[in-house]
């Protein structure tokens, strides 16, 4: 039993990483209605920017804020320059565009900062949290930040005019345009916010997985899976999905014999798919009714 509780706790700790990334995934899905494969790379690039700022002597929180601003602006610029011209193109062409963006960012980061692994500081320290060896203060801080972020997003979407406008633009673009919402800019705003959330995720994850150009590839997959599990339309679902994903993965690794590190992901995905077969819109997702 103690092994079980320990593994669940450790799972929650890793789950916080996935939850954070899943929030960014849901954010972009709300804005553009599909998944952005380059999201992880955008987050990785932002994290490198903050690292570079700290190398130049900027204090942690200064670098944090500057990086958020950079990520927000960067997301908007990417949407305006690269994806707005593709708005009318088929969805699969857009997906190819995401893959191209992935390649460009990954390879540029590799050239600028090379592929060696770098240490990344944490603002929360890394002592054991409340005397538990399984969760460090950093991981506890990460869980805290994720929850704060979730609350902020909830209030933003539920109680601000611009949040309402974004929801409208995402669910019924035609009607939203008719009531005077600039849907095109709402999409750009969604990109900016998703990119900023991704940057927060990146900066929180970097102390755990270390900083290098490929650090986000695995995390993004788990983030996607978590978002899908929780329901792509629900930020709360994304966070719950993230934690579940972390717990799943740890328990699978502990209790199913012969599962190496590599088979963890496929098994976790298989579990998610079985959940989806029963609940196709995810755990908290809004059920989509199709009109013929």
């Amino acid at each position, binding site marked *: 039993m103690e092994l079980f509780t320990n593994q669940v706790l450790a799972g929650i700790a890793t789950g916080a990483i996935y939850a954070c990334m899943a929030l960014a995934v849901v954010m972009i899905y709300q804005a553009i209605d599909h998944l952005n494969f380059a999201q992880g790379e955008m987050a990785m690039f932002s994290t490198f920017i903050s690292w570079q700022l700290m190398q130049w002597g900027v204090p942690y929180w200064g670098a944090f804020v500057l990086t958020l601003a950079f990520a927000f602006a960067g997301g908007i610029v990417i949407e305006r320059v690269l994806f707005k011209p593709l708005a009318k193109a088929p969805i*699969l062409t857009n997906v190819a565009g995401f*893959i*191209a*963006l992935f*390649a460009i960012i990954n*390879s540029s980061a590799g050239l600028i900062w090379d592929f060696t692994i770098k240490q990344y500081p944490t603002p929360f320290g890394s002592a054991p949290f409340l005397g538990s060896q399984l969760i460090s203060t950093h991981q506890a801080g990460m869980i805290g930040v994720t929850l704060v972020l979730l609350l902020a997003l909830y209030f933003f979407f539920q109680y601000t005019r611009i949040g309402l406008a974004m929801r409208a633009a995402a669910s019924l673009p035609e009607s939203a345009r008719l009531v005077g919402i600039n849907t095109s800019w709402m999409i750009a705003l969604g990109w900016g916010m998703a990119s900023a959330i991704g940057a927060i995720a990146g900066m929180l994850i970097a102390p755990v997985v270390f900083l290098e150009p490929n650090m986000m590839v695995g995390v993004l*997959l788990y983030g996607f899976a978590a978002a899908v599990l929780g329901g792509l339309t629900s930020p709360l679902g994304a966070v719950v999905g993230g934690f579940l994903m972390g717990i799943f993965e740890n328990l699978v690794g502990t209790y199913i014999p012969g599962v190496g590190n590599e088979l963890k992901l*496929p098994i976790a*995905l298989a579990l998610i798919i079985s959940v989806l077969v029963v609940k196709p819109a995810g755990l908290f997702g809004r059920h989509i009714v*199709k009109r013929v």
Partner: protein
Amino acid sequence: MSAAEEVVAEGHEAVEAVPKRAMTLGTGTSLVVLAALLIVPVFVKNFIIFQMTMLLIYGLAVLALNILTGGSGQFSLGQSAFYAVGAYVSAVLMEHANVNYALTIPISAAVCFGFGYLFGKPALRLSGVYLALATFALATAMPQLLKLNFLEHWTGGVQGLVVTKPDAPFGLPMSQDMWLYYFSLAVVLAIYIFSVNLLRSRSGRAFMAIRDNEIAASAMGVDVALYKTLAFGVSAAITGVAGSLGAIAVQFVAPDSFTINLAISLFLGMVVGGVGWLPGSFVGAAFIIFVPNMAESISKGLSGAVFGVLLFLVIYLVPHGARQVAILGQQLVGKLRKN
């Protein structure tokens, strides 16, 4: 976010509706292309023949994805898994059971058909992003499954298997590469003709009806479950054949050559060639074989970025892929004829 908001999916289909006549080339053009494919190898070096063989093989794999996505509207990131199964079936049969290479191809088609059909069953309830995730899971699991200990006796584990390259039969005076090229060409042609006819048949119309509107299709009496799994099966079988040919041509199979990257490449090939346009598959295959090498030769350190930029250029200029170029060409020819 309320529980039962209605979302209208108008003009937001995942896959464009391509009419079936627009899915193939005209007879004249086809004959010219075929003639070129037959004659060119006689005049070029063995290495180029090998590359042309790979082009045909990847083209076949992209074609399989095109039938699945362009034909029946189902998205798959798991094609690399079917390709791997095909490759391993051939390799294991050839190396452990001494089966003739040509015979392994129908066997791997049958195995992959079964595999794809069975995979299509649970995937029935999933579509769009969810199906992408499910197929993605398959693609990430495959290399790990091939490395499993109890399969190692047959698969060779991480090391993989070396496959013997076949000689030209009947004492034909041609190199192994050239023979393999003509052999692959024959297989690819047969499958291409089969695919064109499949899409023109009753089943093909059912695929397209499901792609364009699943609910309407089922209301008209199309057995949605049957045709969706059938599309998966056919696509997997063709990918499996491509995998077999690939294993024979490369003379080597190893788990790490069939990662998710292969599936992503095939997907890019489909987009570049034009979703739903079968001949475009081979254009797309050329893109995924040659452009990464080109990018590497432009800049070693930034090859990924150069590849990304080139890909962006292509999708900006022709968002509908090579199909768009073909349509433009057709219109131009039409205009010239009128004048």
